[in-house]
C-alpha cells in the first residue's frame, strides 16, 4: 500500500500533470502532437533514437556478456579480475559528460589515439558513430553487472552434466550456459537500451545536428525553443518504444518461464569450470583488453586535465583545480554527498521491497505497479525533471527548492536497476526454498527476513550501489531541481565545461569517481561475503540438505 502510494505520488502524479500540459489546451487537444509529426527533425529523431537504442543495447549486452564471461569463467588471477572490474566500472561511475568529452580528446580530430598515435586527421567523432561508441562504453557496465551476477549463479554442475553426456564445449555453451543466462541477457538488453533511449548527455555533445535523437530533441524544444508543451509531447513519443521494449522482454521471459531456476538448494560440489576453451578465453581477453585500454586512455586524459594548469596550453603540474573543488566547490560537494548518502538506503530498500512484491506475491495491479515503477527510469531525465518541477512547486506539495525533491527524483528514477536485479535474482531462486521455511512453521515475515532476504541481498546491494552512483553522477533530471539552497557537483561540472574551465571540471569528475569507487569497493566487499550462500555451499548447509 505504502509502495503504491509512493509510486502514485512520485511517478504517476508528476506525469499526469505533464500529460495535462500536453493534451489540454482549453479542452482535450492533440495539437501539440500533431505539430511534432510534421517536423522532419522530430521524425528523424524518433527513428534515430530507436536505431541507437537497439545498436547500443546489442553492443552493450554483447560486450557486457563477454566481460562477465571472462570475469566469472575465465579463471583470471584475482588481481587481474579486480583491475578489470575497476576499469569497466569507470564509465558507469563518472559524470555523464565526462565520457563523451574524454572520447573527443582520445578520438577527435586531434585526439591522442586518432592523431598522435595513428596520425589520422580526418576522423569524425560527431554523429551516429561517436554517440554509439560513447553510449556503449558508458552503459555496457550495466549489462556486465547484471550478467556477472547471473552467470555466477549458474551451477557449473549443470554444465558438467552436459559434458558427461558427451556434449562439446560449444554445444554446452549454446544449449546450457546461454539459455540459463537468458533472463539476465534480456534484462541487460532492456536496461542498456532503456538507458540509451533516455540518455541526453552523450548526444548533446556528440550527436550534432546530423543525428538528432528524441531526448536531446525534447531538451532543445524546451530549453531552446521555449516550448514546454512540444518538448513534453516529444517525451511521450519516447514512452512508446520504452513500453514496447519492456513488454517484449516480459513476454519472452515468461514464455520460457520456470526453466531458469539455478539456485535450488540442492547443489553438488563445485567443480572446475571447463565450459570455455583456452582459445575462447584468449579471444575474450583481447576484446575486453582493448575496450578496457580505450576506457583507461580516456580517463587518463581526464586525470591529466585535472592535474595541469591548462591542458594543452600550460602543462605544468598543479593542484589549483583540486584546491577549487574544496573551496569554491565545497558547497556542491557537501550537498551532493548528503543527498547521495540519504538516497542510498531509501533507494535500495524500495527496490528490494518492490522487486519482491512483483516477483513473489499476487495482488491486483501487480504488473501495473512494476510498469509504473519503471517509468521514471525509461523517460528522459529532462522530462522527469520538468514534471517534478511542475508537480511539486505549489503548496501543499511545495518541495522544490529543497533536497527532498532531488532525493525523491533519484530514488524513483534509479531504483529500477535494483528492482530488475531483485526480480532476476528471485526468478533464479526456487520457490521451494521459501516453501520449506513456511512449512517448518516460519511466518511470511520471518521467511522473508531469514530466507529470501539473504538470497536477494546481492540484488539489494547492487540496487543500493546504482542509486548511490547515479546520485553522484546524474544530471539530466536534477539540473531542473537544483536550487539556490541545494546544488550538485554534476551541475557544476556542466557549468565548468561550458565556461571552458576544463581543469575544475576534470578535478570535480576525478573527485566523484574516487568517492564512488571507494563506496562501490566497500559494497563489493559486503557482497563478496553475501555471495557465499547464493553460490550454493552455505545455502545447502542452512537448509540442512
Amino acid at each position, binding site marked *: 500500500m505504502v509502495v503504491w502510494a509512493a509510486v502514485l505520488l512520485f511517478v504517476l502524479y508528476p506525469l499526469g500533470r505533464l500529460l495535462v500540459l500536453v493534451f489540454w489546451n482549453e479542452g482535450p487537444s492533440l495539437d501539440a502532437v500533431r505539430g511534432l509529426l510534421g517536423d522532419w527533425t522530430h521524425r528523424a529523431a524518433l527513428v534515430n533514437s530507436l536505431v541507437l537504442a537497439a545498436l547500443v543495447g546489442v553492443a552493450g549486452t554483447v560486450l557486457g556478456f563477454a566481460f562477465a564471461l571472462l570475469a566469472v569463467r575465465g579463471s583470471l588471477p584475482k588481481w587481474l579480475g579486480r583491475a578489470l572490474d575497476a576499469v569497466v566500472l569507470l564509465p558507469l561511475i563518472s559524470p555523464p559528460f565526462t565520457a563523451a568529452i574524454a572520447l*573527443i580528446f582520445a578520438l577527435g580530430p586531434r585526439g591522442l589515439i586518432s592523431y598522435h598515435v595513428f596520425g589520422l586527421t580526418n576522423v569524425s567523432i560527431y554523429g551516429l558513430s561517436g554517440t554509439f561508441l560513447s553510449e556503449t562504453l558508458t552503459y555496457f557496465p550495466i549489462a556486465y553487472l547484471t550478467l556477472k551476477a547471473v552467470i555466477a549463479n549458474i551451477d557449473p554442475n549443470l554444465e558438467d552434466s552436459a559434458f558427461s553426456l558427451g556434449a562439446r564445449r560449444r554445444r554446452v555453451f549454446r544449449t546450457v550456459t546461454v539459455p540459463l543466462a537468458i533472463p539476465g541477457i534480456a534484462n541487460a538488453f532492456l536496461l542498456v537500451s532503456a538507458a540509451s533511449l533516455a540518455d541526453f548527455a552523450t548526444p548533446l555533445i556528440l550527436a550534432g545536428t546530423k543525428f538528432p535523437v528524441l531526448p536531446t530533441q525534447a531538451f532543445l524544444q524546451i530549453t531552446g525553443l521555449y516550448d514546454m508543451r512540444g518538448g513534453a509531447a516529444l517525451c511521450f513519443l519516447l514512452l512508446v518504444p520504452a513500453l514496447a521494449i519492456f513488454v517484449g522482454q516480459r513476454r519472452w521471459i515468461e514464455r520460457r518461464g520456470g526453466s531458469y531456476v539455478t539456485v535450488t538448494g540442492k547443489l553438488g560440489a563445485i567443480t572446475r569450470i571447463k565450459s570455455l576453451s583456452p582459445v575462447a578465453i584468449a579471444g575474450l581477453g583481447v576484446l575486453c583488453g582493448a575496450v578496457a585500454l580505450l576506457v583507461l586512455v580516456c580517463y587518463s586524459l581526464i586525470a591529466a586535465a585535472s592535474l595541469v594548469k591548462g591542458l594543452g596550453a600550460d602543462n605544468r603540474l598543479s593542484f589549483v583545480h583540486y584546491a577549487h573543488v574544496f573551496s569554491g566547490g565545497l558547497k556542491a560537494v557537501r550537498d551532493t554527498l548528503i543527498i547521495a548518502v540519504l538516497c542510498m538506503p531509501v533507494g535500495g530498500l524500495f527496490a528490494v521491497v518492490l522487486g519482491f512484491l512483483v516477483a513473489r506475491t499476487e495482488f491486483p495491479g501487480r504488473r501495473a505497479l512494476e510498469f509504473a515503477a519503471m517509468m521514471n527510469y525509461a523517460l528522459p531525465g529532462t522530462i522527469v525533471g520538468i514534471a517534478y518541477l511542475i508537480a511539486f512547486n505549489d503548496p501543499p506539495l511545495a518541495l522544490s527548492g529543497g533536497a527532498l525533491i532531488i532525493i525523491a527524483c533519484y530514488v524513483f528514477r534509479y531504483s529500477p536497476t535494483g528492482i530488475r536485479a531483485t526480480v532476476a535474482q528471485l526468478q533464479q531462486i526456487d520457490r521451494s526454498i521459501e516453501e520449506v521455511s513456511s512449512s517448518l512453521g516460519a511466518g511470511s515475515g520471518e521467511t522473508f527476513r531469514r530466507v529470501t532476504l539473504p538470497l536477494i541481498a546481492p540484488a539489494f546491494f547492487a540496487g543500493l550501489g546504482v542509486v548511490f552512483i547515479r546520485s553522484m553522477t546524474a544530471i539530466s533530471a536534477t539540473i531542473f531541481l537544483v536550487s539556490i539552497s541545494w546544488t550538485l557537483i554534476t551541475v557544476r561540472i556542466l557549468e565548468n565545461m561550458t565556461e571552458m574551465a576544463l581543469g575544475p571540471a576534470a578535478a570535480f569528475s576525478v573527485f566523484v569517481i574516487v568517492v564512488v569507487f571507494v563506496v562501490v569497493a566497500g559494497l563489493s566487499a559486503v557482497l563478496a561475503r553475501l555471495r557465499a550462500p547464493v553460490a550454493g555451499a552455505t545455502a545447502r548447509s542452512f537448509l540442512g540438505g
Partner: protein
Amino acid sequence: MASTLRLFASLLLVLIFAGPGLAQTVNVYTAWPESLSQPIFKAYTAKTGVQINFLRLSTGELVARATAEKNNPRADVIWGAPGDGFAAAKEAGIIEPYKTANIDKIPAELRDKDGYYTAVSRNTLIFMSNAKLLKEKGLKAPTSWNDLLDPVFKGQIQTADARTSGTALTRILSIYYAFGKDEEKAIDYQKKLHKNVQVYTKSGGGCTVPASLGQTMVCIAHMPDAMEAKKKGYDVVVSFPKEGVAAVIEGVALVKGAKNREAAVKFIEWTFSKEMQDLLDKNDVYMLPTLPGASIDADVQALMKEAKLLPVDLEWVGKNRKRLVDRWINEVIRD
C-alpha cells in the same frame, strides 16, 4: 534500528523545510558563468550587506524553470542572460516592467520599449582561430564571412546550435545584417557555411575548448569565450568579419510576483550605477557596458577598433526570432 529511523526522519524534515535564510536576500537566476557573476554579486553584498543567492542556468533552462515556477516564483531577479531569453520571458508573462532611474541614459536600442528588460552589457560576436592549425595550413585568420566558405575550412568550423544558444542567434543576426538585411541571401549563405561546419555545439562557448586544443580550427563565439582562452594561455587569434557583426544585449529584469521585490529593485538600480558598470572592466568580463562613460577593458577596446558593429533592432528580433530559428532548422541544417 528505531533510533536510526527517527534520526533519519528528522533529517528528512529538516531537509524539506530548509529554505534560504531569513536575512535580507535577493534570489537571482543568471545565465552567466559563476566566474563572471559571482565577483559582481559579492561586491554588492560587501557594499550593502544584502545576500545575493544565485543559481546559474542556461538561458533556455532558466526560462523553462521560471515558467514552471510562475505561480510560486523562487527568483526575484533574472540577471545576465541574452536578450532573446528575455523576449521569451516577457511572452511567458514571468517578468514585469521595471524602469531604472537611469533609464534615460541607456540608449533606446539597448532596452525593451515597454520596460520589461534592460541591457546590463553588450556581448560581441567574434571569430576565434587556433593559431597553430592556421600556421600548419599557411592560412590567415578569417576576416570576412566569405572566408569561412573556403573549402580549406571544411570540417574545421564549430559554432553553436540555434535551438539552444543565444550565441547562435547573434551569429544568425550578424549574418542577416551583414548581408544588408536580405533574409534570402542570409539563409543561402548559412547553407553554404553549413557544409564546412564540423559540429554545432549546444552551448555558445562549446567550441572554445575544441578550438583551443586544435580539435577544430575556427570557432564562432562571443568575445568573453575567446578572451578567457587567451588568458588561460591558449594560442588563439581573435578576428572579425569586415562586413560586420552584431552584439547582443545581456539583460536584467524583475520577476513578476517577486517575494523580495524591494531588495530586488535596489539591486537592479545598482546594476545601472557607474560603480557596477565599471566592474565589467575591472573583473575582466570582456563585455561592453551599457551605461555611457563606464570604463572599457583595454584589450576589448583595442579589438573593438577592428570590429564593425551592426545595429540590432530589438523589436524586429523579438518578432522574427522564431522564424529565423525555424528556417535554420528546416533549411540550413537539413542536408
